[in-house]
């Protein structure tokens, strides 16, 4: 019987450590997982800086996770099945939930309301688990959740125009780019990204660098950066009648030019998580894993995660960091 697990612990005073967490024993409707890989998301970094959104302390963050079922008392999953974790924990009884989990008015997330993926074992409700296609590598499957987010964002944009400007080429920006060109390989994607390693990745994957010396407005601008003025910058750079897709979470309240939005007939679209895209993302990863391999640029062991997270602001990764558990 597994009673404890190694886990990354975030205390309320925002100190991070590797410690042990007690595991409850799974009951019918739950499964015990041996987690294999977890992804580090920008929102994890936000929580580490601020403590926002956490319900119980110490927290174990990480909502992009893949693992193998070790025990499933209700028999919903065969032991040994590789599963991806659905990060959303909706309340289930609000008006939003009748439409989609990501529209829940009290939506919570794995890692904030229940312990997340930065631990070796987890007990989760089976409703949060999706069986992986057979043969899908765990190291690729860990991208399913953020890819679902990117797919949802692109779905929210509607019909894609010929040209797209992507502001910010962190992991979610890179996945949005990948999803746009997966659907329409010939779309002209321009990227505005100050980090040279991230820009190098964007160019390698077929994007072009946005040249500020030749400013031009684009029909679709994706804000995947989340800095203080990134939404305002996106509004400046979108064509009249165009769409700004806000994917990154701004870290502070922002002021918008309401008059400009009205007079220029702009669409400002937010996107929270994903709706029904998770199985579609898993299928896309399974169909062409090599397409997504370059997006994972760094991998650390759980025992090294505290050290890596502590210097992440001064040494941001080129792409997605994944954690081997």
């Amino acid at each position, binding site marked *: 019987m597994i009673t404890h697990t190694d886990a990354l612990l975030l205390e309320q005073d925002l100190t991070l450590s590797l410690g042990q967490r007690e595991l409850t024993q799974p009951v019918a409707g739950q499964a015990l997982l041996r987690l294999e890989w977890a992804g580090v998301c920008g929102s994890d970094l936000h929580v580490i800086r601020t403590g926002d959104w956490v319900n119980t302390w110490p927290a174990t963050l990480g909502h992009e996770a893949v693992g193998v079922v070790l025990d499933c008392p209700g028999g919903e999953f065969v032991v040994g099945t590789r599963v991806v974790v659905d990060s959303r924990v909706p309340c289930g009884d609000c008006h939003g939930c009748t439409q989609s989990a990501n529209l829940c008015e009290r939506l919570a997330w794995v890692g904030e309301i229940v312990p997340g993926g930065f631990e070796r074992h987890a007990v989760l409700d089976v409703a949060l688990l999706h069986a992986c296609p057979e043969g899908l590598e765990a190291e690729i499957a860990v991208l399913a959740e953020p890819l679902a987010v990117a797919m949802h964002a692109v779905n929210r944009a509607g019909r894609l125009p010929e040209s797209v400007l992507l502001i910010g080429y962190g992991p979610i920006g890179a996945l949005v780019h990948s999803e746009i060109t997966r659907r329409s390989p010939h779309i002209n994607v321009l990227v505005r990204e100050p980090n040279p390693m991230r820009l190098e990745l964007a160019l*390698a994957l077929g994007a072009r660098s946005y040249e500020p010396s030749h400013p031009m407005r684009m029909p679709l601008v994706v804000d995947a950066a989340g800095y203080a003025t990134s939404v305002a910058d996106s509004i400046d750079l979108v064509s009249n009648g165009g769409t700004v897709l806000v994917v990154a979470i701004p870290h502070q309240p922002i002021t918008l030019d309401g008059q400009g939005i009205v007079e220029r007939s702009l669409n400002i679209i937010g996107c929270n998580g994903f709706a029904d895209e998770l199985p579609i993302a898993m299928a896309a990863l399974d169909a062409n894993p090599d397409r997504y391999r370059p997006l994972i640029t760094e991998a650390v062991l759980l025992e090294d995660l505290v050290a890596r997270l502590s210097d992440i602001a001064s040494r941001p990764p080129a792409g997605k960091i994944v954690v081997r558990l």
Partner: protein
Amino acid sequence: MTAIGDLAARRVVGLPTYRPGKPSTGSAAGKLSSNESPLGAGPSVSDALRAAAGHPHRYPDDSATRHRLAAELGVTQSQLLLTNGSDELCYLIAQMFLAPGKRAVLGDPCYAIDNTVSLLSGADVVRVPLVRGAHDLRAMAAAAIDASALWLPSPHNPTGVAVSHGELVLFLREVPADCLVVLDQAYHAFSSPGTSPDVAALLAQFPNLLVQRTMSKDWALAGLRVGYAIAAPEIIGPLSAIRPPFSVNSFALAGLSAAVGQPAWQAMSVARVREGRALLQAELDSLGVEYYPSEANFVLVHIDHSELAPYLLEAGLSVRSGADLGMPGWIRITIGWAPTMATLIDALRKFSSAVPNNG
């Protein structure tokens, strides 16, 4: 055995058999045994191969590809020869410059194909032992007196140690002008930025120099088999004359053109390898395991393959035994994809704690 069989058998007596790196026991990404590119070729290469598949009935025409590559390299087409992998070039060089009664100089250990083609030519083969993983350039220059060809892989395979530009200049001044120096740069793109020799300057100064490169490593076209030589027209011309016509096939030409047309992919891919190499070497430092600081896409590590094998098997990984490469007691680890390297580091830590005195 028949007389004809005896004749053939005599030619290969003593020739070592080339053994490719073993596949991993897990996913394909776990193969760290053949110095392959972990991310593969850029998306434009697949598109080009699909397009080339429409014309299999036509003989390949390498003129456009040669023109493009020569322009990229800043050389004339008369200085450039495309070959079916850089291994074909080894055979051509041996056929052209080596024969019974002539001498070939190699490091010890050396790249296996250099040794094979030298022995097959019937030339006398002089092996100069490496010193701490590096070529003993003074001893090699001395051995090159009366030699016809000298093979100089840099970065060296399997040690990963590279010769600097300054060392090369001094060395080439010592080597007789009638001895061909084959500078094999299969791994040069992975060298630390700014440390790769200035080949154009060397070629201008030393007409007996031939630079050998492959598209298998940083350009990730190992399966297509394409390499090339850069040298003076007086060397390229005769080599070209003995190269079988059409030896570089249409797919290889299409793949090469597409790859060269997307340099950003190669730059990104090389950057990832350098990061992975730095991470692995830092881990080996931390574990106190001996290795040669590498300028290639692999690291030679002083661990016996048989001792590490159970840990690799459990992790679904394969690396190359040094015994295959003239370095028994060592392993050569190809730098792989980031998650694969994390898995490898986990295996190395488990091994190191279980066998603390290794290395």
